[in-house]
């Protein structure tokens, strides 16, 4: 009875240990939290069935398709496919995992991730107020000043 219990606990330990290091079997790149917060570290995982995971190169592009777009190399994941990332900017970003030297679609994958601000940045709030007051305030002012319809 005691032996069975120890064996069971051992099996359970192995199961949880495996689960802790396992990544999804489907090739791809993922993230622990779908909406990471700016300046807060988060774990990225890369998964692939056949290629050693530490061979992948991971990068992030902040604000893609814009004039202020910039790409940052994050390095290689560990043997289990995990890599830490602290987003330096908020907004929509693209995470990419590529196998250097390969153009194979199955070995290059990406994921779009929204990085949260947490709160309305002061300058953003000021611009929002300036634009809305100018446009809607201007409209209201003109309506008041102009002749009635």
């Amino acid at each position, binding site marked *: 009875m005691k032996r069975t219990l120890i064996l069971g606990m051992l099996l359970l330990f192995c199961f949880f240990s495996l689960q802790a290091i396992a990544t999804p079997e489907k090739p791809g790149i993922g993230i622990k939290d*779908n*909406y990471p917060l700016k300046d807060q570290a988060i774990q990225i995982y890369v998964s692939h069935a056949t290629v050693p995971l530490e061979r992948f190169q991971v990068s992030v592009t902040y*604000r*893609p*398709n*814009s*004039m*202020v777009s910039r790409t940052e190399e994050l390095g290689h994941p560990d043997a289990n496919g995990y890599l830490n990332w602290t987003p330096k900017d*908020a*907004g*929509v970003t*693209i995470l990419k995992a590529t196998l250097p030297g390969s153009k194979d679609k199955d070995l290059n994958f990406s994921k*779009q*991730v*929204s990085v*949260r*601000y947490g709160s*309305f*940045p002061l*300058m*953003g*709030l000021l*611009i*929002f107020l*300036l*634009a*809305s007051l*100018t*446009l*809607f305030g*201007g*409209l209201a002012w*003109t*309506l008041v*000043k*102009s*002749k009635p*319809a």
Partner: protein
Amino acid sequence: MAATERGQWQSRFGFIMAAAGSAIGLGNIVFFGANAYKYGAGAFYLPYLIALFCVGIPVMVLELGLGSYTRRAFPPSLHKIAGRMGEFWGWFALISATLITMYYITILAWCLGMLLGALGPLWQPEQTLTAFKEVGKLPNPTGYFFEMISQWSTVIFVILIWAANLWVVAKGVQTIEWVNKIFLPLMWLFMGLLIVRGITLPNGLDGLYLLFTPNFEVMGNIEVWKGAFSQIFFTLSLGFGIMTAYASYLPEDADQVSNPLIISFMNCGFEFLAGIAIFTMLFSFSIVPKASTLSMTFFVIPEGIARMPGGPLLVSAFGVLFFVLLLLAGITSSVSLVEGLASALIDKFSSSRGALVRVFAAVGCLGSVAFALPLIVDPSLASNGTLGLTLIDLVDHWAFGYGLLIGGLMECILVGWVFGAKRLREHINIHARIKLPALFDLLIKWVIPAVLLFIIGSSAWQELKGIYGHDFVIQGFQPWLPWLCFAIFAAGGAILALVLTLAKDYHQPLQTEEEQSA
């Protein structure tokens, strides 16, 4: 020509609704936010607001003041103040506007096709492409769009949209007025619903922060300023001559300072709200925006809608809402484009509206069908895929990118230097509650022409590297199609404008209010 035959707005409110409906189009809903994002998000709003006050509002005042002064459409107005040379540039701008009308209606026809798709098939995960066999399958909504535009059935949609436009234009100004009185409030209502949905999505509010948080490092980049000034010019539909035509249907004592201010603020306020609606959704679903009207309309935003929570019924409902909103905004704009040309032809040839509608039905439909041609020119979809979409891309580059700016530049030069900016300002100030300052003269004579010349010049400089479209995949039509599109715009536009200018003189010039009182 009797005022009754030309028509007249029934109320100032109706006129403002029609003019705002003309200005608010597809670009306002989908393009503005994407453009702002491209040019540094919040930082873009500063050059944008400067452009609104330095270029947008003054040119809007000019166009409405011109229509009010001459009580004619665009080319005859310019004829009145600057003779045949002025009229030529008026026709040239209207021909550019006509080209734009043709493909704009094709895009609306595609919106109609997407609206039908939004009832179900558009939200399927992927689409088998029957015409693009090399591609095989594509995820939706991209797959659905390319399958739709590669079918001849889109021609039926083109005919339906043209029929709607012609019905409104044939009925005259008062019908344009009531259509806008219904459509415009509906557009604000639908936009309100999209905003509420957007900001209530998980992390939707962060999309708002993304849109407004500035990145000031771009402010020193000339491209940002060029983008802001172009955006203002395009969003207010300036250089088309539409506002001049619309103002010509106003009573003589119309206030042409407050009217342009209201129209400009309404238009920019609408796109400000549209940016919020779109960006809250894009952020929530981690979708990267693209600074292209077609990509945003047919791929990016529908992709966001497809991911909305609440089940397939709610996804379909918001999809339908979005495409109905686009159709309402598009039709109020396309009607004004057709009316801008119709009013000019009525003034020039004393034609009846009925006869013009028949001409438009034939010529306009043929033009729009050309832009809907489903012939495959790029089976791998590396470029535009179909001949119609390729033609839109090429013609849009010239007619929209250059035609309007050239029209705007010439109207500023003609009014500022030939007629006199001060003279127009004094005329406008007679009935204006808010008086135009002398700064208006400086802007019209110097600042705006300089800005437009710079934008046109720097764009033309880029063409020296190779004509737009030289690197497209256009099987069977390369390399001459890009050159043909340029020739249609430049040489075709100039020749047709010359023919229309010389075709007939205005024998019975309508006197202006000042001339009558003199």
